[in-house]
C-alpha cells in the first residue's frame, strides 16, 4: 500500500481504495480498449474532498481522473498511476426551483434518477441521452446529445451554472455570464480544466403522454429530406432514426466474400400530449414520404424516455455488453451526409446489429452555443454513428477498418463526437478543434497548470 493512503483516507470525507480492492471494471471503460491501473480510487464525499485531492496530486505529481458511468470509450474515465475519482459517490439531487425551472445536482447523479425525481412535477431536462444510465457530470463534460437536441442543443447548452474545482485547486462558480471562459471550458471540455461539483440544470415542463410514429424508409435521400422537413415543421418533440440492415447473402469485398445488406432507415417521430387530447395523426404526418408506416405507439412520457432499456438489457443478457465498443460517431455536413453514409454502410456488415446499432440523427447546427462541441458549419447537419460490439479476438482485424470509417467521415467534412473511440494524431486533434485548440491550450495553462486532470486523451503538452 502506498504510504500516503492512510493520511489520505483520514483527510477525506469520502473513502479510498487501494489496488487490492479495485474492481475489474475500474481499470477500463465501456470501450474496453484500454486497461489502466490507478494508484488510488477515491469516492469523494464533498467538494472539499476534491480540493484536498487536487492539492495532493499536485504535490505528488499524480494525475487525477474523473469517472462517472464510464461510458466513454477512449482514454477517459480511467487512470494510470494516479487517482481515479468515482464521481457517482457525489449523487445528491438538490432543490428544484419550479418558478425558474431549474434543479441543482451533484455531478454523479445518474440522469435516470433525476428524471424519476422530477417526473411527479411533470418536469424534465430538455435533452436526455438515449442511455439514461450515465451521469450528469459525464455527459456535460462530453456535450450530451439526444433525440431532442435538434430543438434544444446539447445537455451542456441547458446548464445555468456550475461549481467547479480547477486544476490549481480553486473553487469557482461559473455560468455563461460569469467566469464564462471556465464555464465553456467545462462544458464539453472532457474534464480538462476542472472537476464539476455542482450543476444547476435548466428544466422544461413535459406532457404526460407521448405518441410515436414508426416510419420506415428504403431511400436514404428521401429519409434525409423528410428528416429536415420534420425538424423545420415545429411539430415534433423528439426525432430518432437508425440504419437497419436486411442481410442479402454474401458478395466479394476485396476478393473475399462477406455478408452484405440492403439498408433501411427507421424514423421514429414523437410528440408529447395530454391524456384525453391526442394528436392529429394526419396533420402531423402530412408531407412525409415513408416507404411504410409501421406502427403508432402511445406510452407515458417517462416510459418513452426509458425506451432503450429493453435493448440494453438484451445486450447484457447476450453478453455483448462485455465486448469491446469502439463506437465511431460523427456529425456530418448536410451536403455530404448521404454520400458518406452510403459509402460507409455499403461496407458495414449486418452483424453490427449484434450488440450494437447504426445511429442517424437529424441535427441543427444553430442550437448549440458550446465552444468545445465541434460541429461542421451549416444550419442542417446529420449525426451518424457506427456503434459496434466487437469480441476481443476480432479487434486486430476490425480496428483498421473502423479507423478508416473515422478517416472517411473526416474527409466528408464530419466532426467526431468524442465519447466514442477516437484515435487522432496530434495534428488531427488540432484540425478537430480548429481555432479553438489554441484557446483550449491557454485554458489548460491557466486552470490546470500542472496538467493533472484527465491526461491521456487530448494531447496537451505535459508539464516539463
Amino acid at each position, binding site marked *: 500500500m502506498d504510504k500516503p493512503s492512510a493520511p489520505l483516507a483520514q483527510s477525506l470525507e469520502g473513502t479510498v481504495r487501494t489496488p487490492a480492492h479495485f474492481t475489474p471494471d475500474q481499470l477500463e471503460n465501456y470501450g474496453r480498449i484500454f486497461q489502466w491501473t490507478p494508484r488510488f480510487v477515491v469516492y469523494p464525499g464533498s467538494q472539499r474532498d476534491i480540493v484536498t485531492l487536487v492539492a495532493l496530486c499536485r504535490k505528488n505529481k499524480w494525475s487525477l481522473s474523473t469517472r462517472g458511468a464510464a461510458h466513454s470509450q477512449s482514454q477517459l474515465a480511467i487512470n494510470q498511476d494516479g487517482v481515479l475519482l468515482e464521481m457517482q459517490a457525489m449523487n445528491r439531487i438538490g432543490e428544484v426551483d419550479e418558478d425558474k425551472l431549474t434543479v441543482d445536482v451533484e455531478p454523479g447523479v445518474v440522469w435516470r434518477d433525476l428524471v424519476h425525481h422530477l417526473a411527479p412535477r411533470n418536469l424534465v431536462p430538455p435533452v436526455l441521452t438515449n442511455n439514461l444510465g450515465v451521469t450528469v457530470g459525464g455527459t456535460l463534460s462530453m456535450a450530451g446529445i439526444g433525440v431532442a437536441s435538434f430543438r434544444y442543443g446539447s445537455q451542456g447548452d441547458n446548464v445555468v451554472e456550475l461549481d467547479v474545482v480547477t486544476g490549481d485547486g480553486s473553487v469557482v462558480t461559473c455560468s455563461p455570464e460569469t467566469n464564462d471562459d471556465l464555464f465553456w471550458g467545462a462544458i464539453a471540455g472532457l474534464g480538462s480544466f476542472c472537476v464539476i461539483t455542482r450543476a444547476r440544470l435548466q428544466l422544461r415542463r413535459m406532457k404526460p403522454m407521448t405518441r410515436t410514429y414508426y416510419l420506415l424508409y428504403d431511400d436514404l435521400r428521401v429519409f434525409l429530406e423528410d428528416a429536415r422537413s420534420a425538424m423545420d415543421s415545429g411539430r415534433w418533440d423528439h426525432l430518432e432514426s437508425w440504419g437497419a440492415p436486411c442481410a442479402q447473402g454474401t458478395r466479394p*469485398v*476485396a476478393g473475399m466474400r462477406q455478408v452484405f445488406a440492403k439498408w433501411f432507415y427507421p424514423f421514429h417521430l414523437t410528440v408529447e400530449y395530454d391524456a384525453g387530447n391526442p394528436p392529429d395523426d394526419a396533420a402531423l404526418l402530412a408531407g412525409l414520404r415513408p416507404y411504410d408506416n409501421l406502427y403508432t405507439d402511445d406510452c407515458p412520457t417517462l416510459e418513452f424516455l426509458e425506451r432503450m432499456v429493453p435493448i440494453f438489457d438484451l445486450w447484457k443478457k447476450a453478453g455483448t455488453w462485455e465486448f469491446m465498443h469502439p463506437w465511431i460517431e460523427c456529425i456530418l455536413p448536410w451536403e455530404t451526409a448521404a*454520400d458518406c453514409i452510403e*459509402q460507409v454502410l455499403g*461496407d458495414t456488415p449486418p452483424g453490427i446489429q449484434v450488440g450494437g446499432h447504426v445511429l442517424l440523427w437529424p441535427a441543427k447546427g444553430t442550437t448549440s452555443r458550446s465552444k468545445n462541441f465541434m460541429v461542421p458549419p451549416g444550419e442542417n447537419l446529420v449525426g451518424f454513428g457506427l456503434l459496434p460490439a466487437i469480441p476481443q479476438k476480432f479487434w486486430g482485424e476490425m480496428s483498421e477498418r473502423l479507423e*478508416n470509417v473515422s478517416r*472517411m467521415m473526416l*474527409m466528408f467534412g464530419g466532426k467526431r463526437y468524442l465519447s466514442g473511440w477516437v484515435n487522432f494524431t496530434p495534428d488531427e486533434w488540432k484540425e478537430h478543434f480548429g481555432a479553438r485548440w489554441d484557446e483550449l491550450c491557454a485554458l489548460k495553462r491557466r486552470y490546470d497548470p500542472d496538467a493533472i486532470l484527465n491526461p491521456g486523451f487530448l494531447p496537451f503538452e505535459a508539464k516539463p
Partner: protein
Amino acid sequence: MTLVFGTEAWAAALVAEINASSEYRNAAAKWGDGFNGNVLLVFDADTTFPKTHALLVLLAKGACRGASFVPGVAHPGAGFGLRAPFSVWKDVLSRKMLAATAILTGKMKVDGDRMTLLKHTAAHRALVACVAALDTEFLSP
C-alpha cells in the same frame, strides 16, 4: 500462371481479371459514368523495386477497355491517379494494408477529384483486388 510485372502480358491479364470480376462490375457500375474514369496507377521506385512504373487503366461503367504501361508519372488520358512507393503497393497487394488505409492516410497519393474517389470507394477497392489477384513476379530490371 506467374506474370512478370511491367510487361504487356501482365497488363493484358489485368484487363481480363477486371472484366471477369463480378465485384468490380457491380462496385464500379457508376465509375466513369459522366466523367473520365481512366486511372493511372503509379508505382514509385524505392528500395524494394528500383524502377518507377505507371500503368494506365481505361475504366468506365464497370468494365475495362484496356491497360498499358506508359512512360512518365502523368498521362493526359487519365482522369485519376493513385501513386505510391512500391513498398506501399506491395503491402496493399499482399493485404498487409487495406487500400483504403493507404489512400485515407496519404500513403497513397490521389490525383483527381478526391470527393469523386470517396464516393466510389468500393470501385477502387475492387480494382486493387483485381491487381492483387494476379500471380505477379517483380523482377528487377
